[in-house]
């Protein structure tokens, strides 16, 4: 695959995903934590254009759910109660969710009807709304943690590479230690030590910090190598001969050489950290209820019978595929652009 085609693939996968999660408060029809206890495990709602009498409608409509008397979470559409799908509905929420607030929502139905395009979970919470908000949480975790890791790696790697000697030796041994750590277990340990009363938002921030701060060693090593080779180039030595300061040399001649590595590492680390958040939340150590994240949404399907009888509960896992694939394609394109590998 050519470089430009890979770029199209990456952008094609990532741009819609990011737009969707950024617009979560507008695109999601309901609050992600509102429970509809009469409607657990509702299958995805099917919009209809033709009603029970065979009459066509210009705008789609949905039927109300009718719980079947025999069996738990068994439903059928009540064809006597149809609700038109409305667009740009005005339904203010009680409180802003996830830091954003939207008075209007892309779609919804009239009072009494429910539209769950991706079904509901055990508590009757709308999976689409949770997926959009949860995707935002997971993406943000990946993005911020990657910035932290690469930032720290850039600082420590460039200092180690530029000054060399004892500083370099000490820092690299320290990075060896971090590389050798089984990071998942370290995260478990960190999470277990968090105070009990850490509210969800703070625990989320701490989780990001922990994930980000653990992963600095790899980018630091790569950046150190790049700095080491750059600092012995003739033009750098010449600049030093003309009396250039360390700060000037780093800023003008050396750090620009590391841009390729920094960007590529960020591209690689984002999906890595998204998956780390998913793993932690899946195991109950990440973002706590009721805040959604792709990991804690997937935690429900640990129960085999739920996975096999309510397929829509697996959708957060499906949503991970384009995100991870997109970021890895992007990292590869950036890698090539930086001249680190060739087509």
């Amino acid at each position, binding site marked *: 695959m050519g470089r430009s085609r890979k770029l199209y693939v990456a952008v094609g996968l990532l741009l819609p995903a990011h737009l969707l999660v950024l617009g979560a408060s507008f695109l999601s029809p309901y609050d992600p*934590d509102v*429970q509809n*206890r009469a409607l*657990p495990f509702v299958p995805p709602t099917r919009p209809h254009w033709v009603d029970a009498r065979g009459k066509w409608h210009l705008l789609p409509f949905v039927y109300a759910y009718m719980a079947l008397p025999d*069996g*738990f*979470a068994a439903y059928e559409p009540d064809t006597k109660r149809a609700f038109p799908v409305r667009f740009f509905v005005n339904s203010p929420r*009680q*409180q802003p969710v996830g830091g954003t607030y939207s008075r209007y929502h892309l779609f919804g139905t009239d009072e009494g009807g429910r539209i769950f395009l991706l079904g509901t979970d*055990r*508590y*009757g919470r709308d999976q689409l709304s949770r997926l959009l908000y949860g995707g935002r949480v997971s993406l943000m975790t990946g993005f911020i943690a990657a910035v932290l890791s690469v930032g720290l790696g850039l600082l420590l790697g460039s200092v180690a590479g530029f000054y060399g000697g004892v500083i370099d030796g000490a820092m690299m041994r320290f990075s060896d230690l971090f590389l050798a750590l089984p990071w998942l277990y370290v995260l478990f340990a960190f999470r*277990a030590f968090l105070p*009990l*009363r*850490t*509210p*969800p938002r703070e625990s989320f921030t701490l989780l990001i910090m922990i994930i980000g701060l653990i992963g600095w060693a790899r980018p630091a090593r790569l950046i150190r190598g790049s700095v080491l080779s750059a600092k012995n180039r003739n033009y750098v030595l010449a600049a030093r001969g003309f009396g250039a300061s360390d700060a000037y040399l780093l800023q003008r001649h050396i750090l620009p050489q590391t841009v390729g590595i920094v960007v590529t590492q960020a591209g690689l680390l984002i999906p890595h950290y998204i998956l780390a958040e998913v793993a932690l939340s899946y195991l*109950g150590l990440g973002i*706590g*209820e*009721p805040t959604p994240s792709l990991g804690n949404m997937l935690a429900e399907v*640990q*129960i*085999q*019978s*739920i996975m*096999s*009888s309510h397929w829509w509960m697996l959708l957060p896992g499906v949503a991970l595929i384009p995100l991870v694939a997109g970021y890895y394609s992007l990292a590869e394109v950036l890698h090539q652009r930086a001249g680190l590998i060739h087509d």
Partner: protein
Amino acid sequence: MTYFRKTQPHHTMIQRLLTLTLGGYVISVFACVMWSGLVTPRPIFCASAQEPLIAEGEVGRYGGRLVVAERTEPRTLNPITAVDLASRDIIRRLNADLIHINCHTQQTEPALAKLWKVSADGRRYTLELRRGLRFSDGHPFSADDVLFSFRVYLDESIHAPQRDLLTVAGEPIRVDKLGPYTLQFELAQPYAAAERIFDSVAILPLHLLERVYQEGKLSTAWSLQTPADQIAGLGPFRFKTYVPGQHLLLERNPYYWKVDRKANQLPYLHEIDFLFVGNQDVQAMRFQAGETDVISGLSAESFSALEARRHDGNYRLYDLGPGLEYDFLFFNLNSLAPGAAAEVVRKQRWFRELKFRQAVSSAIDRAAIVRLVYHGRAAPLWSHVTPGNRLWLNSSLPRPDYSLARARTLLKSAGFHWDSKGNLADANGETVQFSIITSSGNAPRAQIATMVQSDLAQLGMDVNVIPLESRSVVDRVFKTHDYDVCMLGLVSGDTDPNPEMNVWLSGGSMHLWNLVERQPELPWEAEIDRLMREQSTRLNLKARKRLYDRVQVLVQENLPLICIVSPDVLAGGKSDLGNFTPTILGDYTLWNVEQIFLRQH
């Protein structure tokens, strides 16, 4: 259409001989298979007891292996040190008790003791043992084994969990041997239903364990690595092999002392194979695939899934209704030392307020929890005695409806108010925020906590749910007391209130909400202490019931535990199992394993 005709080969002498030999071999193998299928090998019978116990039930047929999947591996085969469920499930098959609680009738019945007499003052029990019984290694059983067993259980240095049960009014039971088959048990004071305390107290073989006991090595004896010939009991089965990570095999005890109505020696099964499968999902899948014969402790999800896939009717499922488990929330009401866990102490101002606890109870939508978490296979609870315990349940207790309005009124009358954002705040203006810890390994309880969190959010309470590893929950509740609210469940081993003494008495080892108190701090706690003590000494059942009914009223009124739900006991067994009658007591399915038989094997 074209047919190809195969040309007949020319049989040489060698080929014919070969054909004959192979033919003979096939016929003999076939005959062997048929023989083994038609004729079940007879089990080994050794000397049967002179005074066997005749077990009621269908007369079965011998043979076969019962396969059971356990979630975890046992840790030991030692009845004195076993505390985990997996070990106890296996140990129960290897040992027997003097007097047994029949899980089906919930009444006591003779076991190793063929009869017992109670003195007029209710303090002395004289037990007459069956004669001619032998341990599973063939060694004769006598009163000395019973004497030794009780000496071990009551020895403080052994730390046997049974010691608590065998201690009445702070005094351990005194055991005297009156004859080779007669024993007397003397209690410090009259104790109601005292014969029930003999249930599940395994009688140990003196000839195998005396030396180990004298050497002080009893707590490490009978591990899973101990050779099978060094372990013996009076149960229906004896230990055969153990393969770590895979399975543990028991074989029938040829000296067992129960017979069926036609005097056939029990048990019918040749072997029981306990497989270790790791989790409940695998347990259910292997049962569904027909690889295991019985399953118990099913979750509502697994039960529904098995029910939906029961096409060919090769297994039966049993919803036995609410068992003896009760799941509840409790607030940290421990009187903490000054300076310790200041944050908890601050919140205890709310927790100690009765109206606050009542508001929380009123705001919990129990019906929704039953529906969503247990698919309707549970009963909502307002006190700690479950509907499964029909004998002791106080059926006149009110069952207040879920009511947010009532909860708000209660909070308002206790001085709480709501700020402009709808958050609940106390009279000092502090917003009400606390966390609920729960065991991450127990999915239903974590789900209940999530629903409670959502219910309480409607009252403006900011609640965090924190799933922790179960050891960490136990640590916080029992040792550090560093938690706000905890979601737990208890399962009583018996319907009788006496085993629950340590939960309700101040200073009891399971007095969860206030483990540091030695003396009752509040009048209602003092009343519960008095009632529990009194009911344990009354010998009249009606009088005991009246006292325990009052305890239930006090628990409901004062809410040291906010009881939420009692899950149904869900079990399953293959259709061809005979005498398979799961119950809500004990380990649900194998309580009468000596009578269970396979109709086809």
